[in-house]
């Protein structure tokens, strides 16, 4: 496992896709919130009505809630792209042939990819909360009030849960033998989540639950906990698929 972890970490740290995704998921989301804050300042009533938590309750609480909401949706896409790249690039680049006939099993390599991904997601979640605080300070929201601190914790949790929910993209990238299958799957998941929210079953739909929690909607711990089995099942499936992999297409 150590060799697989070392090599996967080496590839991840030196590639462009993780760097770009990290920036988009941290600074990108924080700057987007600040831009929306700027739009709020325009006073346009139609625009203000669309800005949700940023307008009401507004301030730091609204700012962090807005960041959580964006993280839940944009995060699913961003984490999905990262996972699609992590697994799909081996097929797209042809390097998968070199991952056969080794003392390190392919199931172990897939597991190492997931470990690297989870560690990276944790870093992204923490950096995003710092970025949101920094951008909020720069945008002139003043010092962070006590009631916003738990919401920053929720932002980290929502980002992590979202990262876990993107794991099916790895399954799709593996079964589809490339990046596009993974990206297509995660777009499908985002659409399904929106449909679930509009149809009123969102809290019981694991892919939508963290996003609803981010808005402050009533979501129980049990509903949020459903993220665990979904991610675990997807992780087990991708490890199994890599262990049984054949280059037959």
């Amino acid at each position, binding site marked *: 496992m150590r060799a697989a972890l070392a090599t996967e970490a080496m*590839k991840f740290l030196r590639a462009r896709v993780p760097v770009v995704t990290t920036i988009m998921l941290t600074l990108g989301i924080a700057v987007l919130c600040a831009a929306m804050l700027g739009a709020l300042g325009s006073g346009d009533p139609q625009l203000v009505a669309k800005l949700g938590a940023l307008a009401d309750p507004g301030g730091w609480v609204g700012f962090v809630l807005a960041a959580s909401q964006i993280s839940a949706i944009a995060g699913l896409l961003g984490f999905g792209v990262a996972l699609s790249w992590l697994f799909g690039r081996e097929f797209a680049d042809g390097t998968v*042939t*070199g991952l*056969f*006939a080794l003392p390190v099993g392919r199931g172990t390599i897939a597991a190492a990819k997931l470990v690297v991904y989870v560690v990276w997601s944790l870093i992204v979640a923490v950096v995003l909360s710092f970025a949101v605080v920094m951008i909020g300070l720069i945008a002139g929201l003043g010092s962070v009030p006590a009631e916003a601190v738990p919401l920053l914790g929720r932002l980290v949790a929502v980002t992590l849960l979202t990262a876990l929910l993107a794991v099916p993209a790895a399954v799709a990238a593996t079964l589809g033998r490339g990046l596009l299958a993974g990206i297509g799957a995660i777009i499908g998941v985002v659409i399904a989540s929106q449909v679930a929210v509009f149809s009123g079953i969102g809290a019981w739909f694991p892919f939508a639950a963290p996003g609803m929690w981010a808005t402050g909607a009533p979501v129980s711990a049990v509903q949020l906990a459903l993220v665990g089995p979904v991610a675990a099942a997807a992780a087990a499936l991708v490890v199994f698929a890599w262990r049984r992999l054949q280059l037959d297409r």
Partner: protein
Amino acid sequence: MAEAALAGIGLVRTFDEGAGIRGVDIDVQPGEVHALVGLNGAGKSTLMRLLLGMLRPEAGTVTLAGHELAAAPSAIWATVGHLVEYPLAYSELTARANLELGARLHGVAPRAIAAMVESIMGELNLASYAGRRAGRLSLGNRQRLGLASALQHDPRLIVLDEPTNALDPSGVILLRESLRRRADAGAAIFVSSHHLDEVARIAHRITVLNAGRVIGSLDPGGADLERAFFDLVHADDLVNAADLVRAAEQVVAR
């Protein structure tokens, strides 16, 4: 005869479009270079994939140093080096980093990697590209890098699919010498190639594959290898055509 480093018995694996392998027995012995030749679509790459576990056969078995492929211990896999179709070269990593990565994946102890990488880069004349990202290497140098990754840990079994692809003449010579040295030191080497002249220079045995079956062998020291090869292939094609006609007649008769 010593235990084969790699052996396939009764291998069958066909694809919907009709290509594939149809009952192949093949082995590679320690200390020999065994070459596989055949036209495009003969099944060379499919056979190599079967022998390395990239495909599972519909029938037949593959053994690696006497172990069934699925049960071969990692210590045995650590003694295998291969390059099938694409080099193990990640475009974002330098040539050196790619070789370090390949060494780790082949189970080389971290403290031994630096010297090993330097040695193979010297052997395959890659030292001047050590710090260049693989994505910026020419096709030929990427192939050299892939070969270096397959050979650097001094494997006991080497499987190379069209290893001279994209190599310049000096690369071909370097590879030839490198493989000869390894075979002399006891490594078992299995290579596929289109280049009969090159195969004749290096191989101890030449097996001819056509339409997914082994149809004979060639003498590496033979006078006119090209003619001998095409005689075998054309004779087999005539037999296959006659079989097709017979099968069609039986269908019509029914």
